[in-house]
């Protein structure tokens, strides 16, 4: 299945190489995943640092055990300190 992956800010260096369908200039990629893949599995495979992050699937918050479906849009945002 295919999932649209968006990584923001300091996470953009962890984006996979763009596929033919991707525009390499954006912070989004299309990734190919086995059926039943979870958010946590994607995070592990990308090697994201163990720092605070927020995960959205189709614009709704999702936990690491959330199961992805074909066509989902997975977005991961790392807030930084300061307020």
């Amino acid at each position: 299945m295919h999932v649209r992956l968006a990584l923001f800010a300091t996470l953009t260096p962890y984006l996979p190489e763009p596929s033919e369908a991707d525009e390499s200039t954006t912070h989004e990629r299309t990734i190919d995943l086995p059926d039943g893949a979870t958010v946590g599995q994607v995070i592990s495979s990308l090697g994201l640092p163990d720092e605070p992050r927020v995960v959205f699937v189709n614009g709704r918050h999702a936990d690491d055990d959330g199961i992805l479906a074909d066509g989902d849009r997975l977005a991961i945002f790392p807030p930084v300190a300061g307020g």
Partner: protein
Amino acid sequence: MPYRDAPVTGSDEDAVLHKRLASARVGIIGLGGLGSNVAWMLVRAEIGTLVLVDFDTVDPSNLNRQFYFADQVGRLKTEACMENLLRIDPNADLVVTNTRVTENNLAEIFANVDLIIEAVDTAQDKAMILSVAGEALPGVPLISASGLAGYGSANDIVTRRLTDDVWMVGDLVSDTSDHPLFASRVTVAAAHQAHMAVRILLGLTEP
């Protein structure tokens, strides 16, 4: 504020805008560099009710950017902020709670607000609020901030819409761990948050 109850002298549109803001209830999580400044901006915008939450006291180091005064050092930020806001508008409707917002109390404290402003300090708390608010209060707009430290260009601070319900203000990368804080840049971010709040309450969702 003297003009809160005065007749609106502009067009009918002005009266409608004023009414929308005056009937709104906005929550602010954290009354530091962002939240204390967002609060006075929203009081001046004559937002109906502000729900203000913080657990901290005013520290001398806060005075370089936060909406407090030297004679308020040591006092609870909730109380000092309320006092200052009431000097701007003695009729402002303020609900203050002195506590740390957690995943267990967020939904209760901010039940019935029209919009939430995340203005906390740590990345962990920001992530928690972004996660919990989306789950517990679906459909309530959340305006968060990330990346406002340092003396990088003020023009790098922008408002983005992350999801249908989440807006993010900041340059996304300037962390307080390795950048100092300046009132000028912090207040730019606070103004972005306050202005996005006004726009959302007036029915405009694009940054």
